[in-house]
């Protein structure tokens, strides 16, 4: 083997491996006879080849042969059938394309249908939409003004107190019920989502229309039930609230007025309590209830009345009022407070007065969760 670059190194290599043409090989062989260096180089290559040829060819393993041949056979069959039937190729290309076109058509048509539905929304769908939005938005602390407006419009008899509660209490159960109660047609669901929040005018009209409808329903109901308090605590022996509160709905001032009235009576009751005149407090609270106050405010007043009655020793009546809270506002902090008060009264001495501030101040955390 040469260590330097001999001009004929590549040719020597080709000679050793038999890659030279016959003519070139003959000429080189002649050269080798007269050149010991080139002869030695070729000889070295041949010796290495000879030695390395001791490595025999190793038979390839048979494993996998069958599966390989089967695979090749399958490919060959496919090749034959593929060549014979060009429509297969067309089908393979066209089918996905047709699918895509169909999908695009559905999307476009669907979008147009939604658009048309939005432009021609049914009153029922809009009503349901408004109701749903309001039930979500009815966070008293954030939407106080609107909440009050709705409360004014929705103020109704005892049977509809629950409905009003849905709007005002903001508890999850009532939120879940509200849309169900309205049961909008399925086609109206999509437009509902696109609530025209930047278009307050039609929505305002809708709220008014909705409120009027509710008022009519409430009036009809009052005619049957015979009064707010009568319905709510009608079962109370002796009609604790029946006398003073039961007349309230019919004598109720215009909806926009009772808010102030309740506030005044509530303040008067608080003053009477501070002065130690629980009797007077109870009277003021009854008057507040007689205005037809609804929602959380009603719950607070009922709780305060309960507390005042217990303080007066009118335990049966107090218990009835607390029961009314539990019944009207189930699973609410007000109901919890009412139950707690009843329990404390039952375990304490009858004449003992229990935490006067508790009724109007439910647990702080719960109060926050309400608001």
């Amino acid at each position, binding site marked *: *083997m040469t*260590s330097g670059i001999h001009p004929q*190194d*590549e040719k020597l*290599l*080709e000679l050793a*491996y038999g*890659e030279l043409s016959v003519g070139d090989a003959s000429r080189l062989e002649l050269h080798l006879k007269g050149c010991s260096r080139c002869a030695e180089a070729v*000889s*070295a*290559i*041949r*010796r*290495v*080849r*000879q*030695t*390395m*040829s*001791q*490595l*025999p*060819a*190793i*038979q*390839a*393993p048979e*494993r*996998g*042969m069958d599966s*390989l*041949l089967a*695979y*090749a*056979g399958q*490919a*060959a*069959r496919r*090749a*034959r059938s593929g*060549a014979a039937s060009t429509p297969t190729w067309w089908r393979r290309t066209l089918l996905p394309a047709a699918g895509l076109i169909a999908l695009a058509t559905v999307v476009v048509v669907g979008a147009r249908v939604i658009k048309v539905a939005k432009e021609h929304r049914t009153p029922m769908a809009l009503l349901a939409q408004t109701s749903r939005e309001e039930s979500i938005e009815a966070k008293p602390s954030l939407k106080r003004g609107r909440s009050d407006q709705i409360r004014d419009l929705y103020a109704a008899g005892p049977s509809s107190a629950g409905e009003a509660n849905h709007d005002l209490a903001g508890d999850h159960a009532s939120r879940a019920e509200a849309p169900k109660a309205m049961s909008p047609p399925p086609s109206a669901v999509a437009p509902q989502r696109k609530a025209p929040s930047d278009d307050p005018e039609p929505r305002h009209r809708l709220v008014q229309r909705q409120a009027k409808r509710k008022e009519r329903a409430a009036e009809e109901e009052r005619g049957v039930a015979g009064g707010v308090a009568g319905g709510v605590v009608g079962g109370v022996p002796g009609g604790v609230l029946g006398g003073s509160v039961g007349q309230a709905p019919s004598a109720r001032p215009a909806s926009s007025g009772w808010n102030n009235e309740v506030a005044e009576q509530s303040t008067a009751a608080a003053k009477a309590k501070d002065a130690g005149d629980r009797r007077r407090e109870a009277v003021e609270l009854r008057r507040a209830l007689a205005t037809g106050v609804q929602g959380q405010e009603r719950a607070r007043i009922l709780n305060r009345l309960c507390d005042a009655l217990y303080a007066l020793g009118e335990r049966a009546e107090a218990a009835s009022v607390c029961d009314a809270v539990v019944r009207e506002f189930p699973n609410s902090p007000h109901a919890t407070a009412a139950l707690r008060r009843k329990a404390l009264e039952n375990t304490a001495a009858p004449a003992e007065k229990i935490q006067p501030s508790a009724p109007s101040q439910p647990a702080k955390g719960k109060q926050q969760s309400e608001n």
Partner: protein
Amino acid sequence: VELDTESSDEQLMLDFRAGEARAFEVLLHRHRTPVFNFILRFTGHPARAEDLLQETWLKVVRRANDYQPKARFTTWLYTIARNLCVDSARKEKYRETESLEAPIGGDEADGAGRSLGEVVADLGPAPDRAAHNARLRPLLERALQSLPAEQREVFILREYSGVAFKEIAAVTGVPENTVKSRMRYALEGLRRTLAELGIDGDLADGGRTVAG
């Protein structure tokens, strides 16, 4: 299709592409062992070589439509095999280390299971030529594995697979002169290694060769 087992590789490949499964079978039988030896000596790992062999032929089936008749079938075939070997070597970073400790020699019966050192230690005067050959082979494998990969692949393709230098250039993607240059370096490297192992060309001369 009338299949002539004497057909050229290129014709057989075209026949297979046209849907003649038997053509593939002929090609497989013709080239399976040379390709396996190339892969085995390229990787130095029998189990991996077996997998790569299978993979090579699967690719031949899958890519049958890519084959251009103007190129030699063996060039195409060894290009596939070589690319798979290179990919495998990249994935197996510890391949060199493993192969040094792995049994050498493809034939499990001769010298397999022993390291190079063990084989060298045992390589004393052999009473029997066959036994001497059995001990020699692992050393030759070791000498081959000691070459740099780029020289080894050229040597294997030319020496054991019978691929011409021009074809090797196409398979490896380097100029033919580079291939020949690598071949010269490979031969020089083997000569030195064989001399270090006490195996020189004289062993291959005439009746004194271990090859007999």
